[in-house]
């Protein structure tokens, strides 16, 4: 089946890219003073010489470089991303384990909001082509995606937390009124739902709104622009004319023939959207003091914590490559010419 072959090819490509990224980070770790221990423990590590010798033996640090690379590679696969000096030498993987769920919460919520707003505005814009509504929407989304995500965060903060004071300006839940849920899926807000921990859910949701909203606002412009042009293009297509000639009513025509064909172009940009969301989440989390990967990355940057920086980059790279792969496969599935031809 062609789809399988296509998926395999994309998978291979994804692996290739990740491998490339790993190589780059490996090369970089060695450039930093040529000492892997520096890469793991930061620029100024102080270790007992015995400990150093132990590490050198365990991780084959005195072996030729390609051997080191292999062990590095295996180490990463095992989850060893080094130790983070900016967090008291806590293992990077552990830090990421603690922060990733919150980033995912923001990103996924923002994704949903973003797609909803983006699609809705795109459809309205296409329907009322060249009308004042269309112009206004255009101004709105250009302004939105031209603004840095943290600026939108600032604006949203000012409006809701400073001016109206109805939503909190920082944090992720109010410990005074709720307890954290036990770990089931890994996403605290989902876990609390599953558990029935409504106090936490309500509180966490309250703190999640602003960061997700800011992130969604920063990103929806891409979707609106593509949806609008895709819809406009599709409506000019001959098969729309055929559907009309059949006597099909506009509503069904739109949902059965126009939207699906336009949606295919949207799948293509969904990976771009994810990329924007992930990089944007860094900024938004910092502005709202949301305990995701963003603030940790900033901390690592400020302290020249290379293990942290590289670890975060690798994790993000993995997420993005995976989403790209999924989007490619989804697109191939949707387009019958690829699926069957």
């Amino acid at each position, binding site marked *: 089946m062609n789809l399988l072959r296509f998926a395999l090819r994309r998978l291979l490509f994804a692996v290739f890219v990740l491998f490339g990224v790993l190589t780059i980070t490996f090369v970089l770790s060695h450039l930093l003073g040529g000492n892997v221990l520096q890469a793991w423990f930061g620029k100024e590590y102080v270790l007992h010489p015995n400990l150093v010798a132990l590490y050198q033996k365990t991780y084959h640090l005195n072996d030729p470089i390609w051997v080191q690379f292999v062990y590095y590679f295996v180490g990463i696969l095992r989850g060893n991303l080094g130790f983070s000096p900016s967090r008291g030498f806590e293992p990077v993987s552990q830090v990421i384990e603690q922060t990733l769920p919150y980033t995912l919460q923001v990103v996924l919520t923002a994704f949903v909001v973003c797609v909803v707003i983006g699609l809705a505005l795109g459809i309205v814009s296409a329907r009322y082509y060249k009308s004042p509504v269309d112009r206004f929407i255009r101004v709105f989304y250009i302004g939105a995606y031209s603004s840095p995500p943290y600026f939108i965060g600032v604006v949203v903060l000012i409006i809701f937390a400073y001016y109206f004071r109805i939503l909190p300006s920082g944090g992720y839940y109010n410990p005074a009124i709720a307890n954290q849920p036990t770990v089931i899926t890994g996403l605290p807000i989902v876990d609390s739902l599953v558990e029935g921990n409504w106090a936490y859910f309500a509180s966490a949701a309250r703190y999640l709104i602003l960061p997700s909203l800011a992130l969604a606002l920063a990103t929806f412009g891409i979707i609106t622009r593509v949806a609008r042009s895709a819809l406009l293009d599709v409506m000019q*297509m*001959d*098969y729309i*004319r*055929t*559907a*009309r*000639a*059949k*006597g*099909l*009513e506009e509503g069904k025509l739109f949902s*059965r*023939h126009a939207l*699906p*064909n336009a949606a*295919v172009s949207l799948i293509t940009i969904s990976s771009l959207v994810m990329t924007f969301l992930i990089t944007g989440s860094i900024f938004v989390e910092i502005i709202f003091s949301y305990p995701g990967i963003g603030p940790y990355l900033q901390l690592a940057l400020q302290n020249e914590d290379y293990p942290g920086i590289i670890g975060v980059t690798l994790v993000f790279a993995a997420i993005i490559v995976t989403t790209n792969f999924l989007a490619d496969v989804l697109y191939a599935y*949707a*387009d*019958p*010419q690829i699926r*069957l*031809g």
Partner: protein
Amino acid sequence: MSRKLGRPGSTPSLLDAKGLTVCYETGMGRVKALSSVDLAIQGREFLAVVGESGCGKTTLGLSLIGLLPPKSARVTGGSIGYKGVDLAHLSQSELRHYRGSEISMIFQEPLTSLNPLRRVGNQIAEAIILRKERKEGRTGPGETGLRVYDSRSSDIPRLPRFGKKLPRSLRSEVSELLRLVRIPDPEQIIDRYPFELSGGMRQRVMIAMALSQQPALLIADEPTTALDVTTQAQVLRLMSEIRDKLGTTIVLVTHDLAVASQVADRVIVMYAGEIVEDASIYELFSDPQHPYTKGLLACIPKGTRRDASLVPIKGSIPDLTIERVGCKFQPRCPYSMQRCSEKDPVLVRTKENHEVACFLYG
């Protein structure tokens, strides 16, 4: 302002266009694509509308079914009488009830005219379902918009979601239709996507789709232009059969007189938005009267003899943004007289089954 074609005492026409005028707004001005066209189409007729690009034949076809591009084209005069209703002045939602069920249309490019993401059988089934819905009165003309919220009739099947194949209840009907248009192995074809079929097959699918709602009138806009000659002949033969077996009136729009000659009973020649000659196929080819028609016939390559040269018509079609007085063909006409630049000739009957708009004949 013409006398009707047809034998005296014949049945009233199926469709009667009177004084139909259609204008386009283009970047370069307003174009009168159709100027006061009078046309009466009889039931069971195979009518060919012939002319160069830009003569208005496609516009005529689109106006009959109400598919003129709404943003740029408007019917600025005249009427289209069909079963007692003036189609030219109906709203889009009212027109919708006639489309597919009474008047149907197929287009030139079968590949782009079919939705690339849906299986061919599904698209035909969509039309069948529309017919059933209409029969049930769920979407009929004259509806005031009251939705009757009774439970969905279990007789009308639902169109399957994307990618899914048709349920058995619809497959037999679709198969029947495909057999009607002489598609081999219909059961296989139902599940194919448009890109998997050849041009000729796709056009047959379009025809099947157009016929599925059993329309009284089928308009075909250059259906064979994108096909190779052999397939062309097959499709034309098919259309002839459909007229014979089902009694559907067919209007074939084409630039190719040779195509028309293969299947039509009656030919209308159009030029610059006007009908210049209207005759039975026999009459037109044995006694072409309008100078333009004569020129068209002379254009048809006559064979491979060394001295057989191509005879084009001098000049080019007029700029329709400019309103001219007099006969539109006059600048290119080898027989033009003083009268021709003063007044625009109207259709005049010269023989039985033959009308022409030219001052040479009165």
